[in-house]
């Protein structure tokens, strides 16, 4: 199932993936496991945060927020209990990396969580894993039991005086629960409806208490940062974009897979060298670069160093690292429709622009795809999507609108061609005669 390591990769958080019994604590301990934690125990919380800031580690869940800064927002004098929450909801279409991190190296995630707990002074943490990943929950539960048995979890961790309990928590199928405030609602046993922010989770998160919430990959990177030192980690990437990232490449390439590469790795090289080029020698049409929420790039735009800032310069997003590659035969109207069907299905229905917008867009895109679209529909899709931007309660609304706008602006001719085709089909012989 998993791709072979590729020489272009820089394997920091995936370096243990190929080892025998890579998920076991023995393998972990034999390969630098829990070394960073022992270091963290000797460090002050401020020192840990300083290393993270120095590392330029940015969140790997989607928004790319600097992790050190996020952790520094936790009010340390707040008397309330504090929490660590792992976002393992992984449901942004195109994304399949957190799965590998948990499956192959669950202790790395546990170590990252304990370091977070040490930093903010917290006693309890939860790993929120999407319900479909039951086999990963089983792997994680087993790893947690091993960590308890070895004294890395529970009371007085390795004689440090630190107490920390960590548990898995299963989701039950809802994309929206990947959004941090909806995830917290879900973790409290409610529907995944987002919360008004501010306050942000750092101040008022789980049970209205200060909470550090990060993506799986982000937590997994923390031990490496402390082990290597923040500066050494930062040096791997580009300025302000520290380290490596797990890129999930899917679609029409010869070697799809999840590859750990330095930030700033060239997209062209990724597609044509690391992934072995386009399937069947076809030409590239475009790439959805960072999960389904990120606006599409045309073939001639797919040549830039992949770091957060350059994705932004290309008017798209690094997002979740899910890169979907489309060959010249790809039907963009179909892809746009499938994308919108997803958002319409996953909209939690709380606010009108998102609920109505996604369902209208789905309807219009369906008739485009089925060949009963009208000329005005292309502009209508564009306008409807633009009107959703910034008008919704949580970022899901934008996540639905942005890729739609991208499809129309970048591939308008495909939508027009679909209309021409259908007009041809709708033309009866009689009409043809009268045209002549």
């Amino acid at each position, binding site marked *: *199932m998993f*791709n072979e390591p590729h020489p272009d990769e820089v394997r920091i958080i995936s370096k243990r993936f190929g080892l025998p019994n890579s998920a076991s604590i023995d393998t972990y301990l034999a390969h630098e496991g829990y070394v960073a934690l022992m270091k963290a125990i000797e460090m002050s919380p401020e020192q840990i945060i300083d290393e993270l800031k120095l590392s330029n580690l940015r969140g790997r869940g989607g928004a790319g927020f600097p992790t050190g800064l996020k952790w520094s927002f936790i009010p340390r004098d707040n008397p309330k*209990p504090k929490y660590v929450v792992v976002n393992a909801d*992984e*449901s*942004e*279409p*195109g*994304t*399949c990396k*957190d*799965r590998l991190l948990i499956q192959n190296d669950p202790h790395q995630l546990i170590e990252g969580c304990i370091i977070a707990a040490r930093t903010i002074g917290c006693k*309890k943490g*939860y790993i929120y894993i*999407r*319900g*479909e*990943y*039951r*086999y990963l929950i089983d792997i994680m539960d087993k790893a947690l039991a091993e960590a308890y048995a070895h004294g890395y979890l529970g009371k007085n961790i390795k004689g440090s005086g630190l107490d920390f309990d960590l*548990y898995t*928590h*299963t*989701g*039950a*199928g*809802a*994309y929206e629960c990947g959004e941090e405030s909806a995830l917290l609602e*879900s*973790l*409290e*046993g*409610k*529907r*995944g409806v987002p919360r008004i922010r501010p306050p942000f989770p750092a101040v008022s998160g789980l*049970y209205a208490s200060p909470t550090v919430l990060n993506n799986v990959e982000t937590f997994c990177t923390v031990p490496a940062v402390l082990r290597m030192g923040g500066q050494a980690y930062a040096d791997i990437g580009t300025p302000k974009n520290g380290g490596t990232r797990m890129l*999930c*490449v*899917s*679609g*029409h390439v010869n070697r*799809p*897979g*999840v590859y750990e590469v330095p930030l700033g790795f060239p997209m062209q090289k990724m597609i044509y060298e690391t992934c072995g080029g386009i399937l069947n020698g076809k030409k590239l049409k475009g790439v*959805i670069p960072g999960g*389904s929420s990120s606006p599409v790039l045309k073939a001639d735009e797919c040549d830039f160093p992949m770091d957060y800032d350059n994705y932004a310069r290309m008017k798209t997003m690094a997002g979740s690292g*899910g890169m*979907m590659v*489309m060959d010249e035969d*790809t039907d963009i109207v*179909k*892809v746009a429709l*499938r*994308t919108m069907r*997803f958002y319409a*299905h*996953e909209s*939690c229905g709380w606010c009108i622009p998102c609920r109505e917008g996604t369902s209208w867009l789905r309807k219009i895109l369906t008739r485009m795809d089925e060949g009963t679209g009208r000329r005005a529909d292309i502009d209508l899709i564009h306008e409807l999507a633009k009107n959703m931007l910034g008008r919704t309660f949580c970022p899901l609304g934008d996540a639905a609108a942005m890729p739609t706008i991208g499809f129309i602006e970048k591939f308008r001719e495909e939508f027009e061609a679909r209309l021409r085709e259908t007009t041809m089909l709708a033309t009866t012989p009689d009409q043809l005669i009268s045209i002549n």
Partner: protein
Amino acid sequence: MSLTFTPETEKILQDIWSRYPEGRKRSAVIPMLMYAQDQLGVVTSELVAEVAKRCEVSPLQVEEVVGYYSMLNKKRMGKHHVQVCTNIACLLMGGEALWHHATKRLGIGHKEVTADGLISLEEVECAGACSWAPCVVDGYEYHHHVTIEKLDQLIDSIQKVH
């Protein structure tokens, strides 16, 4: 009718309950429903009442949750719940053809069950297997790089065992 869980399920439910702080037992609602549903095959009103009692919330609060999450089913699904992903990465690799093939072969649609109760189908959103697309999930078991032949083999093997 009172609910009885198998000792394994009962153990998991109690373990789940113990994970959350005092006064925060509502957090256990979703995990308890998920693991209990695995045993019962469906979320019944007895289960709703039982979870509500254990988590110190009202049955209505549990019902609300059941209605929201796509993996909690009030309608009994098949012994094998076969989920076909047709989201973008799978769509690019033939996921839609798999879905159509499955519905045709079994004569059932989205969230429907075969007459013998053996298999149900669901067209699902991205299952987190995009780099190994297209993917089909049988219960909690992932199948990657699925072709029409492989899907047929999977259905054959389910039908043969029962």
